[in-house]
C-alpha cells in the first residue's frame, strides 16, 4: 500500500532526478560552446586545434581587461572580436600558410606551439590574476520558476542556453547554405583540390579562424562569468573533447547534441552512481560514455561516414 508520505518521497525523488538532468543539460550547453570552436576549425581544415582552450582564455581575458579599463560590455565585445580577427590573420600568415598541404598531425602540432604562444601572450600582455566578470545576467535561481515547480535554474544558465542555441543555428546555416560554408568543407577535404578549383584558401582560413575566435569569445564570456577569468579557463577544453567524440568532429549540431548527452550523463552518473565507487568520476566518465557511443558509431553520432578504399 502506498501511503501519502511514500508518494511524497517518490515525487521529490523524481523531481530531484529531473533537476539533476536539467542542470546537466545546461552544463552540457557550456561544454558545447567550447566544442563548437573545435568543430569549426576541424571542419575547415581537418585540423584539431589544440589552442582552442587558450583562445577562449585569451578572448575572455582581453574582454574583461578592457572592461576593467572602463569600457562598457558592448564596446569591449567588438573590440575583443577585432583582436581575435587580427590573431586569425596572424595565424594564417605565420603558421598555416607555410604549412599548406602538410599532414594534419603536423598542423596539429603547430597549434600546440600556438597554444603555448597564446597562453604566454595572454598572461604577458595582461596578467595572471583572477578577474571577476559580470555581464549583467544574474547567476541566481529564477524565483518564479522555483516557486512554481521547485526547480532551481538560474537566469544565466537559461540565457547561455539561448545564446548557444542561436549560435548553432546561425553557424549551421552558414556552413550548409552559403558559398563560403561550402568552400570551407572543400578545403577540409583537400587543400590542393580546393586551390585548384579556385577557392581562396587563405581567405577561407582567416574567416574560419575569425569565426572560431568569435565562438571562443562567447565561450570565454560564459565560462569567465562562471569561474572568473583566469588561466583555468583553458582547462575547459578537456570538457569539450568527449562532446566532440559523441557529436563528431565535423558536425555543428552534433556539438550541441553531444554536449547535452555528456552534460546530463555525467551529472546523473556523478549524483546517483558515483558514491558507490568512490566519487569524483566526472573526469573520466564522459570519455567512457563517449567510447561506448563510438563502439557503435566510430565516426560519432553526426560525423561524416568514413569511407575507406584501398
Amino acid at each position, binding site marked *: 500500500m502506498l501511503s501519502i508520505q511514500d508518494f511524497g518521497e517518490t515525487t521529490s525523488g523524481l523531481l530531484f532526478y529531473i533537476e539533476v538532468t536539467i542542470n546537466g543539460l545546461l552544463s552540457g550547453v557550456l561544454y558545447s560552446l567550447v566544442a563548437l570552436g573545435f568543430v569549426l576549425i576541424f571542419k575547415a581544415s581537418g585540423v584539431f586545434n589544440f589552442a582552442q582552450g587558450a583562445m577562449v582564455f585569451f578572448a575572455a581575458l582581453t574582454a574583461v581587461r578592457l572592461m576593467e579599463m572602463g569600457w562598457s560590455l558592448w564596446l569591449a565585445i567588438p573590440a575583443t572580436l577585432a583582436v581575435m580577427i587580427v590573431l586569425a590573420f596572424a595565424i594564417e600568415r605565420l603558421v598555416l600558410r607555410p604549412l599548406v598541404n602538410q599532414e594534419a598531425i603536423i598542423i596539429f602540432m*603547430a597549434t600546440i606551439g600556438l597554444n603555448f604562444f597564446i*597562453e604566454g601572450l595572454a598572461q604577458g600582455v595582461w596578467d595572471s590574476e583572477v578577474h571577476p566578470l559580470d555581464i549583467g545576467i544574474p547567476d541566481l535561481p529564477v524565483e518564479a520558476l522555483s516557486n512554481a515547480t521547485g526547480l532551481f535554474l538560474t537566469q544565466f544558465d537559461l540565457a547561455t542556453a539561448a545564446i548557444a542555441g542561436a549560435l548553432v543555428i546561425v553557424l549551421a546555416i552558414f556552413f550548409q547554405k552559403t558559398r563560403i560554408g561550402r568552400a570551407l568543407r572543400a578545403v577540409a577535404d583537400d587543400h590542393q583540390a580546393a586551390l585548384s578549383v579556385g577557392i581562396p584558401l587563405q581567405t577561407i582560413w582567416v574567416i574560419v579562424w575569425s569565426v572560431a575566435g568569435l565562438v571562443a569569445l562567447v565561450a570565454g564570456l560564459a565560462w569567465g562569468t562562471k569561474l572568473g577569468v583566469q588561466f583555468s579557463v583553458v582547462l575547459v577544453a578537456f570538457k569539450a*573533447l568527449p562532446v566532440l567524440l559523441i557529436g563528431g568532429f565535423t558536425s555543428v549540431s552534433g556539438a550541441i547534441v553531444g554536449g547535452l548527452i555528456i552534460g546530463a550523463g555525467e551529472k546523473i552518473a556523478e549524483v546517483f552512481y558515483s558514491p558507490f565507487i568512490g566519487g569524483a568520476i566526472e573526469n573520466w566518465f564522459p570519455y567512457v560514455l563517449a567510447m561506448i557511443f563510438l563502439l557503435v558509431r566510430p565516426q560519432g553520432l553526426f560525423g561524416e561516414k568514413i569511407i575507406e578504399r584501398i
Partner: protein
Amino acid sequence: MLYREAGQFKSSYRSDQAIFPIFQDRIGVIIILLFAFLVIPMISSEYMLRSIFIPFLIFSLAAIGLNILTGYAGQLSLGTAGFMAVGAFAAYNLVIRLEWMNFIVAFAVAGVVAAAVGIVFGLPSLRIKGFYLAVVTLAAQFFIEWLFTAVPWFTNYSSSGVISAPPLIAFGYEFESAQSRYVLTLAIVAVLALLAKNMVRTTTGRAWMAIRDMDIAAEIIGIRPLWTKLQAFAISSFYCGVAGALWAFVYLGTVEPQAFDINRSFEILFMIIIGGLGSILGSFLGAAFIVLLPIALNNAASLFTGSGLPADIVTNFELIIFGLLIIFFLIVEPHGLARLWQIGKEKLRLWPFPY
C-alpha cells in the same frame, strides 16, 4: 667523404641484417654509448645529472614507447602518462609487498602490468581510428589517474596519498649518488632503445608500419589488425610503464598520480612529433627539445630578472618563445628533428662535393 658507405659490401645474411649496417654508424653508436657511460658521469655536475640527463633519458624512453604506438603503428594515443602511472604504481606495490624482489625485476614486471593495461585500453582501436581513438585513450588517462587517487590500496594507505619510493638496492648496492642513478637509467634506456631499434625492423615492426600506412590494405595481405594493434599497444605500454617506474623511483623519488597527469601525456606526444614520428633517434631528439628548452629558457630568463624586467613578463615570454620555436621548427622541417639528421647524413655522404 667522412661518411661514405661505398665499399662496404654485405657478403652474408648476417651482416645484411645487422642493426647498424653501416660501419660509421656502428662506430658512432659505440662512441656515443662510451661517452654517455664513461665521460658524462665523470664531467657532469650533480645538477646536470639529476635535473637534465636523468629526466631526459626517462622521457626518451617514454617517447620511444609512444613512438612505437603512434609513429610506427599509427595509433594516436594520449594515454601515455596513464601507462607511466601504471608502471610507477605497479613497481611501488611490488617492491613494498614482495620484499624479496629486486627492484630491477620489479621494473620489468611493472612494465608487463602496464602492457596488460595497455592491451585492455587498446581493444577499441580495432573499431575507432584517428583523432577519435586519441580521445578514447584519454579515457585511459583520466580513469587511471582517478583509480590511483580513489583506491587507497595502491598508495599503501598513506595518509597523504603521495608515497616516497623505497631506496634502490640491488645486488647489495644502493643506487644513491647521482652518478649511479644516471648510469642505471642509461643502462636500462640503452638496452630498451636498442631492442626497440631492432624490433621495428622485424616482422613485427613491418606489420606495424603496414597497419599505419593503411590498415585495410594490410589486412588484405594477411596481417591480423587486432593482433598487430594490440601488440603495439602492449609493447608501447611496456616501455611507458618502465619509464614511469624510473620516473618515480630514480628521478623524483615519489609516486603520486598527479605527476602523471594529462599534461605529461601531451608533453610526450610533443616530443615524438618534434623529434620525428617513426624514428627511435627522433624520440631522443624530441625529448631533448622538450625537456631542455624550457629549462634553458628559464635559465636564460633568470639572467634577465636582475635587469629590471618584471619577472612575470619574463616568465610568460618563455612560453611565447617556446611556442614560437615549436612552430618555427615545424615550418623549417615538418618531419621532425630526426629528418634533419637524415639530411645531414646525405650531406656528409657527398661532402666536400656539392652533389
